[in-house]
């Protein structure tokens, strides 16, 4: 036991001595939360557009004013003729060009019909679609206000309620994912690199001939990372509560217990990677590709799993992060209890046992076979 404590101390020293890594370890969750909270949004805001007004009358002026003041768009350019459109797009100056037909206002008054051409730069298909929809909505709204007297003789009124996230904030989506990502990063990536490092430097030999049992070596190696991971979980929860106004709706204890389960799972993944690889570079690439990438893209973190083609979906279901994110969402955002996540929890527990068993079995006590 004394040996073990000594070994544990050494591991903690290793981490605390490296101030730069430590800084990044603690800065990472904060930076990511800020990023996802404020910067990464799919909403349309301040999209740059150009206007080709061939009519230049009262109505078009009013519509343009309305568009400019909507907050969705910034009018970056006024064009004089159609040949300029292509150039605008090619230079990437604007995302959309609104073309009012000549005599727009007059036609609207006389014929009750006037047309406007919305041209979007659809190289970004998503934004293009949104931008066109938003522009159309603003114009329809304008017309509706203009003839507010026209009431439908029969009207279906819809009352929409947004559950769990009434303000449709993006943070709700990203807090669980960020948490999962940080845990995989610290527990799996760092652990695997730190164990392989001992191999590469030749110090593994010294550890192996020491009176420490393999299980003690493994545990001593991962213990500091468990502590670090836990601190980060708490940082993220505090940030989401105090900065983004997103409290944990369900049981905090259950949430922490599930996080611990996921940390242990990631650690066993890290150990497994370290026993399969021989140098840090390979371990790192393997962790980033095999663990980080799936965590980010195959877990429902950024892209909803339902939209993913079926032949890739099974990868998502083999990915433990998928279940962890479901658990986090249910507990944190929906306020549900263990009853709602027992299936996912069981899957994680099962995965943990398999991976832990595998990684202990694979952990060689000989350097060369």
């Amino acid at each position: 036991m004394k040996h073990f404590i000594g070994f544990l101390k050494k591991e903690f020293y290793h981490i605390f001595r490296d101030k730069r890594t430590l800084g990044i370890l603690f800065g990472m969750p904060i930076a990511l939360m800020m990023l996802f909270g404020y910067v990464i949004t799919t909403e349309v805001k301040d999209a740059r557009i150009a206007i080709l007004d061939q009519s230049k009358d009262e109505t078009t002026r009013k519509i343009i004013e309305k568009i400019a003041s909507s907050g969705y768009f910034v009018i970056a350019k006024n064009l004089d003729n159609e040949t300029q459109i292509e150039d605008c797009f090619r230079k990437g100056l604007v995302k959309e060009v609104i073309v009012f037909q000549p005599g727009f206002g007059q036609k609207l008054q006389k014929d009750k019909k006037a047309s406007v051409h919305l041209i979007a730069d659809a190289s970004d298909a998503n934004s293009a679609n949104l931008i066109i929809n938003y522009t159309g909505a603003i114009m329809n709204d304008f017309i509706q206000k203009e003839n507010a007297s026209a009431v439908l003789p029969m009207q279906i009124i819809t009352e929409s309620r947004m559950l769990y996230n009434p303000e449709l904030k993006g943070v709700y989506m990203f807090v669980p994912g960020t948490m999962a990502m940080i845990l995989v990063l610290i527990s799996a990536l760092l652990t695997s690199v730190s164990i392989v490092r001992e191999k590469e430097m030749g110090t593994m030999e010294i550890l192996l001939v020491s009176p420490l049992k393999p299980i003690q070596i493994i545990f001593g190696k991962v213990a500091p990372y468990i502590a670090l991971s836990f601190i980060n979980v708490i940082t993220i929860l505090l940030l989401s509560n105090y900065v983004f106004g997103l409290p944990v709706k369900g049981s905090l204890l259950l949430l922490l217990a599930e996080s611990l389960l996921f940390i242990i799972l990631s650690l066993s993944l890290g150990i497994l990677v370290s026993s399969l690889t021989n140098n840090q570079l390979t371990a790192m690439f393997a962790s980033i590709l095999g663990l980080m990438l799936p965590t980010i893209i195959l877990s429902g973190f950024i892209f909803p799993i339902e939209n993913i083609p079926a032949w890739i979906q099974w990868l998502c279901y083999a990915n433990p992060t998928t279940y962890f994110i479901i658990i986090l969402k249910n507990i944190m955002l929906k306020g549900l209890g263990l009853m709602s996540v027992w299936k996912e929890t069981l899957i994680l527990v099962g995965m943990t046992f398999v991976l832990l068993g595998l990684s202990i079995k694979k952990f060689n006590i000989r350097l060369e076979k």
Partner: protein
Amino acid sequence: MRTILFILQKEFIQISRNKMMLPMIFVVPLIQLLLLVNVATMEMKHIKIFIVDNDLSTTSRQLTAKFSNSNFFVLKGYSNQIAEATASIENNKADMVLHIPKGFEKKLGKENKSELQLLYNAINGTVAGISNAYTTQIISGYNYEILPRGSGSSALQYSAGNIQIIPSFWYNPTLNYKIFMVPAILVLLVTIIGLGLSSLNIIKEKEMGNIEQINVTPIKKIHFIFGKLLPFWIIALLMMGVGLIIGIILFHTPILGSIGLLFAVASVYLLVILGFGLIISNISSTMQQAVFVVFFFMIIFIMMSGIFTPTDSMPNWAKIINYINPIAYFMKMIRMILLKGSGFKDIYQDFFMLLGYGIVVITLAVNRYKKVG
């Protein structure tokens, strides 16, 4: 020159000897392209809807049919129990619930006004917002259909939309999101390979202790650094080519602009990236530390580069940070060249910014590198 050649030779031998590294360098792009391009779609395909029909009238059935016939919606449940519907939202079986209350049709006939309730799982706010837009569109479309025709006026007259909107989607009329993602994956590829390899390489020599042996040779600083960086520069460009070919074969990525210009931009971009890799490699003492620094900046810069989301909608402080984000420049230019056929005169500003940036970073990297331990 001869010295550089020898260093180059050594580096290539070293890279080719690592049995795991080589396949990874070559397999990674394939996996990334296949997975990411297919996965990274923001298109909304199927919204899972649960309909609670307490009215059981012609109107409610017609309305239900509207949803089950729509391509956007998948009818996940139909019942008269609201509790069943909310449970289906809780366990993610449904994304939204349409509740048609009892007496809906009657009220519509009598009072000319009747309410419907819509419930959304709004954890993903964007999806909920778009679902809501689609749903109300379907409902109001249905609303116009059932307006009384006999009252002498066509339904069109009530429609507020007498502004006829003609949308056109240039460069990508089918709104294929994959076309947008392929260039982004190429950027990722070049960045991960360039930054990953260069930042870890010198550190490895440091950790293994053979940097001292190199330091005592008559190799000049600048020779050493170019010898170190050139292999990665070549590999990264090669990988971009491979990625591009895969993109063309599998996803029919359009190449509207000049390939030469694309490679010129990539070469300049790699100057910045390799320079940064070198600097990180210089200031870090262990690989773990370098990995962390690289990962930290890479993930932030990638997310901010507009890879998935438009840079326009970012707050101002983020836009300012993007001036020093090399990935943002490359991301913007590669998409412009490939998807819109932009030429040099369209991108020269960004190009020269990136070139200046590259020169500054490389100079810094060379200056910071010291042969003295």
